[in-house]
């Protein structure tokens, strides 16, 4: 359990335009490991929704399965949430969104949930231009099933000693760009200063917005050869081998300037080479973004920030030419073609 909330709220506490306090955007107490990056993302989501003055109950939170997918319980307690099945959040959001275009959709997923079992659904929801925030809480591992490599596992490879992950990683940002996403950003869970605005931008974007948020798993970031990995610890340090010991860890936080880089030491000792986009980076050029990412990849750098945005979007409902009201709000009178129409249909089959 990573934090216990104070039971009383201060009377003079700040309120947003809607008169809500930040607490009104919180959820239940997290049951994730202490220091888990996912909890920082939840906090950033809370902050962003609060600052955007979104009515909490008009937000729908939908997720798959995994530690990351558990988090919708831990933010926005006044919103409806749906922890669905592994890898299939995109289809559930699609249905929900078609049904009611007026809610704000936050889809939460993990890298296993999105880049492995859910890769097909992920790709197709991008293509479909759904108006939503698709948040990937990317830790490079399967947290909930105890630390298998995921398909994005390479992101820390630059600094890993020992055997590198033999498979190419799937770069979800590149994928989203190729598949036509209109808002594509990469964040780092520990960089709240950067992440909150990215989320706010995404929630304000009237089309498909994806944030690939690097989020350290404090428990299973377990690269072989890393000096603080379990293998290492097993051999050298911890005096009792424990199947289930999870050391209490601190949340990683960074704070650095746009246009500069920073090295983040992960809990297992590996190092992430974050690089924050320059303030004059032009996020309106898709081709440049693709190339920028290819360059970063070659240099072992992980670009963070707003990589690409196309504010000029047609969303799914435009394409589908649905009415302005949410379909779920139409009453039966609007939907019933009536007895006469049925009679003429009968006639056409005689």
């Amino acid at each position: 359990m990573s934090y216990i909330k104070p039971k009383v709220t201060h009377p003079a506490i700040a309120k947003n335009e809607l008169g809500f306090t930040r607490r009104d955007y919180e959820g239940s107490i997290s049951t994730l490991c202490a220091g888990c990056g996912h909890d920082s993302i939840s906090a950033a989501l809370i902050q962003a929704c609060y600052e955007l003055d979104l009515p909490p109950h008009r937000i729908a939170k939908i997720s798959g399965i995994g530690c990351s997918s558990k988090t919708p319980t831990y933010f926005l307690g006044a919103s409806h949430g749906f922890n669905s099945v592994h890898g299939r959040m995109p289809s559930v959001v699609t249905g929900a969104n078609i049904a009611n275009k007026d809610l704000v959709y936050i889809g939460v997923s993990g890298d296993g949930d999105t880049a492995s079992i859910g890769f097909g659904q992920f790709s197709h929801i991008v293509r479909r231009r759904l108006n939503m925030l698709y948040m990937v809480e990317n830790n490079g591992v399967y947290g909930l099933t105890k630390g298998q490599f995921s398909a994005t596992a390479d992101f820390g490879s630059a600094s890993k000693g020992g055997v590198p992950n033999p498979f190419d990683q799937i770069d979800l940002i590149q994928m989203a760009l190729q598949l036509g996403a209109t808002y594509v950003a990469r964040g780092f869970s520990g960089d709240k200063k950067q992440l909150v605005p990215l989320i706010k931008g995404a929630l304000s974007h009237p089309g498909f917005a994806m944030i690939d948020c690097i989020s350290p798993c404090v428990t299973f970031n377990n690269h072989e050869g890393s000096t603080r990995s379990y293998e290492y610890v097993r051999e050298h340090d911890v005096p009792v081998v424990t199947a289930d010991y999870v050391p209490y860890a601190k949340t990683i936080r960074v704070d650095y300037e746009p246009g500069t880089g920073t090295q983040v030491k992960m809990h297992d000792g590996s190092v992430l080479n974050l690089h924050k986009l320059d303030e004059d980076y032009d996020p309106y050029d898709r081709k440049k973004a693709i190339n920028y990412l290819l360059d970063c990849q070659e240099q072992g750098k992980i670009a963070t920030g707003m990589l690409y945005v196309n504010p000029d979007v047609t969303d799914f409902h435009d394409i589908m030419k649905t009415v302005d009201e949410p379909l779920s709000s139409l009453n039966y009178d609007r939907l019933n073609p009536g007895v006469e129409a049925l009679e003429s249909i009968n006639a056409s089959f005689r």
Partner: protein
Amino acid sequence: MSDLNRVNELVLRFANVNGSGSASANSLIAKSFFRMGLPVGPKNIFPSNIQGLPTWYEIRVSEKGHTGRRGSVDVLVAMNSQTFQQDVADVVPGGYLVYDSTKPLNPHGRRDDINYIGLPLTQITVAKYEQARHRQLFKNIIYAGALSALLGIEFEVLCDLLGEQFKGRDKIIETNIDALQTGYDYAAKFYDCPLPLRVERRDLVGDKILIDGNSTVGLGAVYAGATVAGWYPITPSTSVIDAYTKYAEKLRIDPQTGRRLFGVAQAEDELAAIGMVIGANWNGARAFTATSGPGISLMSEFLGLAYYAEIPAVLVDVQRCGPSTGMPTRNQQSDLMACAYASHGDSRHVLLLPSTPKECFDFSMLAFDLAERLQTPVILVSELELGMNDSVSEPLTIDPDYSWDRGKVANYEMLEEGFEFYRYLDIDGDGIPYRTYPGTHPTKGAFFTRGSGHNKYGGYTEKGPEYQENMERLLVKFRTAATLVPPAIIEDKGRPDAVLFFGTTAEVMPETLEELQRQGHLFDQIRLRSFPFGDEVWQFINSHERVLVIEQNRDAQMRSMLMIEGDVNPAKLISVTHYDGMPVTAEFLVATISGHVDNGGSRQRLSA
């Protein structure tokens, strides 16, 4: 040779090549019988292919109303040289073979006991038309014209049908009628028309319609107020969505804005299709999908979620011949257990089992009411034969006062007035809790939906007793379902033996029972229309000595379900199965059942 000499009782089969454009001509003929007031049963027997393989179209006309498949052919229109020999062999003695006599008859197709009617179709079309495409297409119309003369089909009926079809395009109508006339004239000139085997106008179909079940399922969804469809193409279910879309495009456009009062998403696969349906229903819309066997398998994880998290969902399964890809253009009733118990863990689902296009419509509408009332998936289990072939059906009707039943939903007002909302609490004793739509109320009514352990308040739990309490309530809910689904149709005259059937088997049952009666075998009958089974089913079974369970699958799946659900002694459930992919015939059933009855036989243990 004794010629067939019958009026209004015949089976006409067309043997064609897939992709040759014969379907229109053949269904024109089918519809013409119907227009002449005759009960008709057309069946399209097509390959899993687009062009070049054999395809058949069979029409049964029956004044007695026996429109199910009979299994033999009186008149065969043999237009496919690949299958010619087999086609000839299928004609009953005294029957008629219509063939293209441009070339001499293949000697392997010679029989002494049938009549040959040659039409020089290639010759005529080559002479008459220039384009290859036209030659091919008009061949079909010309034989239709000839059949008009031969079988006594009123020529004006054919003309009317073409006129309606091409309304406003006079040139097309004219050309087609000309072709019809050509065929008619040729036959009339060279053969004694009509043949002794022929049709005559009657007034036997009243206000009935001739329509396929997939269209009526789609229409049902429109009338049920479904606004969201997520789907993935698969034979034989695709036309359900096509029909929904087509009618929604007509009937569900906002008059002010011209925009759609519905949304259809072609999904990337079946998992996504059912996911969309679940997401949309969760969010307060009526949503559905349609698929066939392979899709059911793929959807089963999601179905378990919807069962356990109690999300309404309407799913249409148009069954085809399994297992695996099986014979995708053939009929079977073999997804019953896959649907009823879809998903791992203790899961069970409500099924509706229509037998006619009208029932497809009614059950399609009902499926949405039930799904929302019960907050669970409802699977409309149709069949290829019912879905893709036209049948004579009661006209579609809805009660002018009908409005949808959205079930137990706590809305803004209720919450505001202090309704104590707990997502999984059974306050009415029927096992059905209240739900809320996302976004309803700023501070009340939000809950968290999950497929993992939850207690009656909707909270997460890993506690055994809380988990179990919820699972037991789901059983209560399932018992409630048994009281809400359409009851079985029963004819109980107190006979000791009975037949039990469902789905397309119903089409051949009147004929089957008449013939059995003629042989001295009397049966009560029950037609199942839904799962879970209602009390009337148990009472019926209990009050009979032997119940013959007739089904179109190998493994006697319905019989299994009766045993599982009703603790019925298997000794009284005699299994009759037919599963070669073709629709079951009365002939087959009569032979099998009279055999059973005569031997006092009971079903062999599969596991013996």
